[in-house]
């Protein structure tokens, strides 16, 4: 009872978290596993029919998969950058400043989240046609930034509320210009909120089907492509690329962190 129980109690949180991580990764594990599966046609299901490395060897053999993936990554990246920037500014205005029209602004931010996607998609389509914009990457970009902004504002704001302002005030007292204070103090303190918001914006964009479907013209994003082929069998390359995307993301972050750590160590030993 005693030792094991105490260990369990002390590590309950970590165990629970590990289970949660496993749960979140479960589909990606299945997808990764089945990127090694032998199959004659596309994958409709995930039945095991035999081990093969063929699809990894020919990871980029299916051009329509590649094109759709590249379009989506570009779109999500661009939409993430713009919506995170715009949204962060909005969050700053709403938390830090008192001004007329604040309640209207708050409403303006909640409403897009509460609107069914199909309604946004259809309404935007009519609008783009009235504005005379040609459907394609540009209309997708406008739409994706639009629906990402609200999510960014809400996440960044949750970080900003109750934010300790003493450091900023100290900097101002020491004569730092507002922009310098913002760059050297506010932004680093806000960073975790901004990173979280950016991740959400990226995931929102790279996952969107309904709104994109209405406004894509003949441009094909990854979800649009997948939606089509999933009905008749997904090429196994899709599993490979999905697994790759996951691994590249994680490895890239690990490298950045490792680099930072080294830089810190060197700085410490130099100092």
């Amino acid at each position: 009872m005693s030792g094991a129980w105490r260990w369990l109690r002390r590590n309950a949180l970590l165990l629970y978290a590990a289970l949660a991580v496993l749960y979140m990764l479960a589909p990606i594990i299945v997808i990764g596993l089945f990127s090694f599966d032998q199959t004659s046609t596309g994958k409709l299901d995930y039945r095991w029919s035999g081990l093969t490395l063929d699809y990894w060897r020919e990871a980029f053999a299916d051009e329509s998969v590649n094109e759709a993936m590249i379009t989506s990554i570009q779109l999500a990246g661009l939409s993430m950058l713009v919506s995170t920037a715009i949204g962060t500014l909005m969050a700053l205005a709403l938390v830090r400043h008192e001004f007329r029209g604040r309640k209207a602004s708050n409403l303006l931010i909640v409403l897009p989240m509460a609107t069914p996607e199909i309604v946004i998609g259809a309404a935007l389509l009519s609008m783009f046609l009235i504005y005379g914009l040609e459907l394609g990457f540009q209309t997708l970009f406008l739409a994706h930034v639009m629906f990402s902004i609200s999510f960014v504002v809400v996440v960044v704001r949750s970080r900003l509320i109750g934010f300790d302002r003493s450091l900023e005030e100290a900097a101002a007292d020491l004569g730092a210009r507002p922009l310098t204070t913002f760059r050297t103090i506010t932004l680093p303190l806000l960073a975790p909120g901004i990173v979280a918001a950016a991740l959400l914006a990226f995931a929102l964009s790279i996952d969107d089907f309904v709104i994109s479907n209405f406004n894509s013209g003949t441009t094909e994003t990854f979800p649009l492509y997948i939606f089509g082929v999933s009905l008749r069998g997904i090429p196994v390359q899709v599993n490979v690329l999905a697994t790759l995307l996951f691994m590249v993301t994680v490895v890239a972050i690990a490298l950045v962190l490792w680099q930072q750590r080294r830089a810190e160590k060197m700085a410490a030993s130099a100092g």
Partner: protein
Amino acid sequence: MSNSFENTSAHRRRPALALLLALVAMLALAACGDDDTVGGGGGGGEAEVAKAGPVRGELTISNWPAYMDTGKENTVAEFEDATGVKVDYVEDVNDNAEFFGKLRPQLERGQSGGRSIFVVTDWMAKQMYDLGYLQELDHADLTTVFDNILPSLESPSFDPERKFSVPWQSGMTGIMVNEKLAPDIRSVNDLFDPKYKGKVTMLSEMRDTVPLVMKADGVDPAEADKQDWLDAIDKLREAAESGQIRRFTGNDYNQDMTNENVVAAIGWSGDTSIIENPDVKWRMPAEGCILWSDNMVIPKGAPNTAAALAWMNFVYRPRVQADIAEYVQYVTPVAGVDEVLRQRDPELADNQLIFPDEQFTADCSTQPDPPGSEEDQQEVTEAFQDMITGQG
């Protein structure tokens, strides 16, 4: 959690809201302006005939996924080589209604979104034509098509003179059965057997599911009146509410069939080729199937109709069509393909699902629209959709 900016002027918000609304109204007025009726009336009532001419330039085609042979030397590439036309082949039709939904605002303005051809099912093609969204076809420009089209497809009831549609592929709706788990299912009525409760799916495509249910109960869909449709929908509603029918699906029933979540389903003939489960077979229901075609149509506002017409002629060459048929395994609309395929793979040439003979489809009906006026049709559609979403 204090905020250094205390609110001292709560009463000042109203003008700002009013300002915002005014701005919105202004923008809205500037943007819309003229008309006060939205939808309908389409690209003008006037008939427009697709123009032939020199074949060059670019061609955008919208089709369903996996409806074309693949590889570097597939039919699209071959067409490009033969004509010098650059083809943008887009697989963005997943569902008739959804495709129409996203394209309608453009079609209404006489635009096609850059597409010169899209492929839609019979009834959808007819609706688009009736709304004035499609161009008409001059048979003199489509000699290869009309030399080779199967006689049975020359004069369908929705377009008796083939004025606006050319079949892409045809197919049959019947029952998909797991012969190991449900060997005794032979009729659509067997899908209502309590023994298979929760192990059966049907299609959310009304024009497939409802006529099959009517046929099983001895009603000829061609003769059925509104009440017959509504009765069939009631029968479905009861089965849905009791949990007999697990889901109403689109193409995704294939996944449930493969994984054996479902032992039988209403399904499409070409799908056996993609279900990776050797026990799953498409069966002709004892009372017959539903026959349909997906058609190539040319929308108004389509660029480069000359290349579109050339494409239609091209895919009606038996040798070219054989490549497509071999891959998609639906019913090919082109005569002479069986002979080409016999040399490649005799088994395919004898496959009743690709080359059904008259005896095989003797009891089948063409896919019908609900009967009666616009209002009657709307009433039936609404009843069916309410049944699917479980509304009162």
